[in-house]
């Protein structure tokens, strides 16, 4: 075990628990594939979506996972961009989680597509006016960038450990020096790419004049805030779980520090941006002081409360109390709640677009479901949606692929600085520069 331990591999070998975990993930993936196969044979009628409410769980979770993939990359690359050693312990795990999440997000589009076999049209006949084409491009770029970055961060250690994943690179001092510079440049590309990814995903919605709250210039900045909140929340949860179940070790100081950062992100998103979005509408729509106040403070749906209270006020409160916020259990709970809250924010966004039809005169819009022949059940004047079991199983299967990527990554890629290596991966400039 000695050599593997010093190679920084978090999971040197899968034990009984590890194998059980892999078995569980495998079962979820197989179930998801089977459910997708069923959905392909029946059509999207197997989902809860219909003509009025034509995007559902897949798109809601796509939005969530695009956001989740932000945290890791930003925590890894922002310090490197500023030539700082901070949060070094989270850098590699962050990129691995980011890679897993963007893969999940990309895969979630597949079951949402009516004819996935025609996806090649993205290459043969793209319309560059479409925000979906922009998003397709940026998701591909971002995924590739994550893969490259993870390899760049670890390839000299992989070479030192004799791993084939080093792809022939040697562990030399000159090589490490060159990689440090490459890391700076990669970080300087990764940060704007992350901002672009979340903005473009926001613009998919924010450009649409026909769907209620979607058409708002604030949507893109809110997506950035959501990404910071949920991405960092997930990274903290995964790091603590890795600390508990693998050889990965979390630096308590850094963890507590990142907990504080999460609190700041939460305050910015759930308090400030939300208030900025709601106040003008509340003020314009109502006349009396209390009517304005009420409309400003009180949300319209359960998703709103699940997001703002369970996923906003509660974790923010936990992280605000000095005696609580250093506890690992509090940080993990707050991180998990932040992810859950962001999920409900995405669900709420999709609902606000589809619940109310702009033209809702009777009999309404034909739903396109199966006509039972008994009532006029093919019509609807409002949108309603409940995901089916098929959608849930497919989604869980895809999320399991993400978990598998993280698990396998921890088995084969060193997540932490191997013993005996001096601090590595800091700056793109060099020591001489800093001394000058």
């Amino acid at each position, binding site marked *: 075990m000695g050599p593997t331990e010093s190679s920084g591999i978090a999971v040197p070998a899968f034990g009984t628990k590890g194998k059980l975990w892999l078995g569980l993930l495998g079962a979820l993936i197989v179930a998801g594939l089977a459910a997708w196969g069923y959905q392909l044979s029946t*059509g999207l009628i197997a989902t809860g979506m219909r003509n009025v409410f034509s995007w559902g769980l897949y798109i809601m979770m796509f939005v969530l996972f695009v956001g989740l993939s932000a945290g890791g990359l930003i925590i890894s690359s922002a310090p490197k961009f500023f030539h700082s050693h901070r949060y070094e312990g989270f850098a590699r795990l962050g990129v691995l989680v980011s890679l897993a999440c963007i893969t999940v997000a990309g895969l979630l589009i597949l079951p949402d597509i009516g004819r996935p076999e025609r996806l090649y049209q993205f290459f043969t006949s793209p319309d560059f006016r479409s925000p979906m084409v922009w998003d397709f491009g940026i998701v591909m770029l971002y995924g590739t960038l994550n893969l490259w970055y993870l390899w760049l961060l670890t390839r000299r250690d992989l070479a030192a450990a004799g791993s084939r994943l080093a792809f022939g690179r040697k562990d030399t001092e000159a090589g490490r020096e060159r990689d440090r510079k490459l890391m700076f440049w990669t970080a300087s590309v990764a940060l704007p790419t992350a901002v672009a990814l979340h903005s473009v995903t926001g613009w998919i919605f924010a450009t649409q004049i026909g769907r209620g709250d979607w058409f708002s210039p604030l949507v893109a900045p809110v997506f950035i805030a959501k990404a910071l909140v949920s991405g960092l929340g997930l990274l903290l949860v995964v790091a603590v779980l890795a600390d508990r179940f693998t050889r990965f070790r979390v630096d308590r100081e850094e963890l507590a520090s990142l907990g504080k950062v999460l609190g700041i992100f939460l305050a910015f998103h759930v308090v400030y941006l939300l208030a900025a979005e709601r106040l003008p509408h509340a003020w314009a729509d109502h006349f009396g002081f209390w009517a304005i106040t009420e409309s400003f403070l009180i949300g319209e749906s359960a998703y709103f409360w699940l997001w703002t209270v369970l996923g906003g006020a509660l974790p923010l409160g936990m992280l605000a109390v000095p005696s609580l916020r250093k506890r690992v259990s509090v940080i993990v709970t707050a991180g998990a709640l932040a992810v859950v809250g962001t999920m409900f924010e995405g669900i709420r966004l999709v609902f606000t677009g589809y619940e109310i039809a702009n033209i809702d005169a009777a009999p309404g819009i034909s739903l*396109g479901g199966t*006509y039972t022949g008994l009532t006029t059940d093919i019509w609807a004047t409002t949108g309603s949606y409940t995901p089916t079991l098929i959608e849930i199983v497919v989604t869980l299967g895809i999320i399991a692929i993400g978990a598998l990527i993280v698990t396998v990554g921890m088995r084969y890629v060193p997540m932490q600085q191997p013993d005996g290596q001096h601090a590595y991966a800091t700056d793109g400039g060099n020591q001489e520069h800093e001394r000058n």
Partner: protein
Amino acid sequence: MTNYGLVIDQERCIGCQACAVSCKQENNVPMGQFWNRVLTEGGDKLDTPSGGYPEDGDDGTLDMHYQPTACQHCENAPCVKVCPVNATYTRDDGIVEIDYDKCIGCRYCMAACPYNARVFNWDEPEHVPEEGTGDVEARPQGVVEKCTFCSHRVEEGLDPACVVNCPADARIFGDLDEETSTVSKYVDTYETDRLLEDRGTDPKTYYIRGEMSPGRPQTSDKLESELDDEDNDEDDDAMPYVLPAESGGGD
């Protein structure tokens, strides 16, 4: 340039649903789907007015209009702009159409359309009769479809099926770029609304409300532009024979 548009005279519309049904037949629209719907502006249910009956010698407040609603064939069509693969496009004659071979079924166009004019084939489309009706391209499971202004008829010099089959002559189809066309004249002469004008989609479907127009002038099922040549010499003799044949055959 040709730029096709539709004028619907809501003062003439009697809410008979003939346009909705003939659209379904002509375009082989699957069970459970409608490209063209006749909505009731008034009460909560189909064919119900808002307001109340006259009581105690007062005037009643009953009010009801019919609003036939299909694709508005917008100039600034959001569905065309969002389609990632150019499956939805605007033809040179202004008709917004879908290339079903390109459509990947992402339904972004349905999110973009403020009129809910588009429907998606959630499963294998079902037709009655099973072999289908009309002379149009088949649409498989997994694609979006919608009103095409009956482009297959327009290409043959015929008015759309909903226009020809309106017994109240409430639907007038023609070239908005042609100053002398009936649609252009009606848009100039009568007070017209377009649906959700505030969204800036610039629809090419106009609704007349207030003063009733004379409606669709020709009884032939040909496009107005096609009539001009033969109109004058054929009109007097041919019309009596055309009429019964038309009402019998239908489209």
